[in-house]
């Protein structure tokens, strides 16, 4: 599903944000990305959704080679992804429902199927009563959950979630995490950046740890090596 090979990445203004990162994620896997603030978690996700290109090395996602992805193929890649952005990126002048619905329209879903699907995902994140609210009328955690609902809506083969519980209380965190687990169980691969150490520890999924742009630990590889 994902392959990083010796990937370096530099932002136009700034030093290397990622240095020689290599890892693979298989179809159906659930992987945590951890690391200190500024370690490069979001940068890895950004490469996955082709928001940036690697400066060196190879990035493949869902059958697309990000290195030389043509601009017109970017939408095709993104339609296969569900993305929860760290800063939500909701459309400010659309209600929660409209935010989710528009994403579905953009990916070409049949219009008559959309309303039901929107209701479903919003109630999955516990926001069935807030569908008509605009983002500015929602609490921080509620906005975050709208962002999660939007990412889940088109049932993507790969879900990228950047700190999806940063604004949620313990209970909501657990509920959202359970939701991601269920989705993963149904076959979706999940890559989730998180600094919630307790959550990561408890979940006991494969964890990639970054430190200043370098991959310093991969519990999956450790496990594989331990098995060998």
């Amino acid at each position: 599903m994902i392959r990083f090979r010796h990937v370096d990445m530099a932002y136009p203004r700034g030093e290397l944000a990622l240095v020689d990162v290599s890892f693979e994620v298989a179809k159906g896997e659930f992987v945590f990305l951890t690391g200190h603030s500024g370690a490069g978690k979001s940068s890895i996700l950004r490469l996955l959704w082709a928001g940036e290109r690697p400066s060196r090395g190879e990035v493949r996602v869902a059958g697309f080679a990000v290195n030389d992805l043509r601009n017109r193929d970017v939408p095709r890649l993104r339609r296969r992804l569900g993305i929860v952005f760290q800063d939500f990126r909701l459309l400010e002048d659309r209600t929660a429902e409209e935010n989710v619905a528009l994403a579905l329209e953009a990916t070409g879903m049949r219009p008559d199927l959309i309303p039901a699907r929107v209701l479903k995902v919003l109630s999955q994140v516990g926001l069935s009563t807030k569908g008509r609210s605009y983002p500015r009328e929602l609490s921080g955690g509620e906005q975050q959950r709208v962002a999660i609902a939007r990412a889940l809506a088109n049932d993507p083969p790969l879900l990228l979630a950047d700190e999806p519980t940063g604004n949620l209380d313990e209970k909501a965190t657990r509920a959202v995490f359970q939701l991601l687990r269920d989705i993963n169980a149904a076959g979706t691969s999940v890559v989730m950046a998180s600094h919630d150490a307790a959550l990561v520890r408890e979940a006991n999924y494969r964890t990639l740890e970054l430190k200043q742009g370098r991959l310093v630990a991969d519990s999956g590889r450790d496990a594989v090596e331990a098995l060998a």
Partner: protein
Amino acid sequence: MRPVIRECVLGFTRAPLLSTLSVTAIAFSLFTLGLFGLVAVNLQQALAALEDRVEVVAYLLRGTPIEAAMLAAEDARTFPEVAQVTYVSADSALARAQAELAEFREAYRDLRTNPLPASLEVALRPGQRDPETVAAVAERLRGIGVVEDVRFGEEWVAGLARLRRIAGLVGGVIGLAFAGVALVIIATTIRMALLQRSREIAILRLVGATDGFIRAPYLLEGALKGFLGGTLALLLTWAAFALVRGGSDALVAPMFLPPAFVAAGVAGGTLLGLLASLLSVGRHLRPRGVR
């Protein structure tokens, strides 16, 4: 595609102020063009009315018999530049002079002999009234036997040609300036409306929308704004015209813009809105900081 129209309508209703301002700006700039067009059309008409008066008069030798005069008139009618030739006898010339020149009326009454000669009044075809052609025709008329002298108001003809040249030049410069104004305004308003929504465009791209999906409502909106602006401009121009027409006692009956011009204006507004959207959206679809 239902969503495109819905998005386009939303674009209007979500930012009513901005939309109204865009339409107003487009309307006023096209209105400017319309006013200019109105002035140009009527100036053109006034000049044409003046040019109708360009005429060459061939004075005949005193005592030319009417048959010889008629032959000379026939001769002049064969010139390709000539539209019409009228014979004015010495008597009717005197009558006309007495009627037109009031202060001489009394003086002429005392005359025993008619001092005025008969003449041929030669009207030229439209488009053949420039100084060179008029002079050439005059020269050829002089060649006719019974013609004693030919007059055609050289200064009047040359002055008219100069006026026309100046009017054309001034018109061209001002018209171009106004068209430029209209373009700048339309581009500005649409660009600003888009800057306004660059975040929205960026987010749509992030969730996998194609360029076409993003672009369509903006293009429709641009075209619609252009169309509304054009129609409003037409109404304003008509109102200005009606106001002026009401006020004037019609020395020359003022004329409204020809239908083709009106249609071109509205269609041009629509196209302009569409084009401006196309250009602006095109650039905005690829912002530097995509992320």
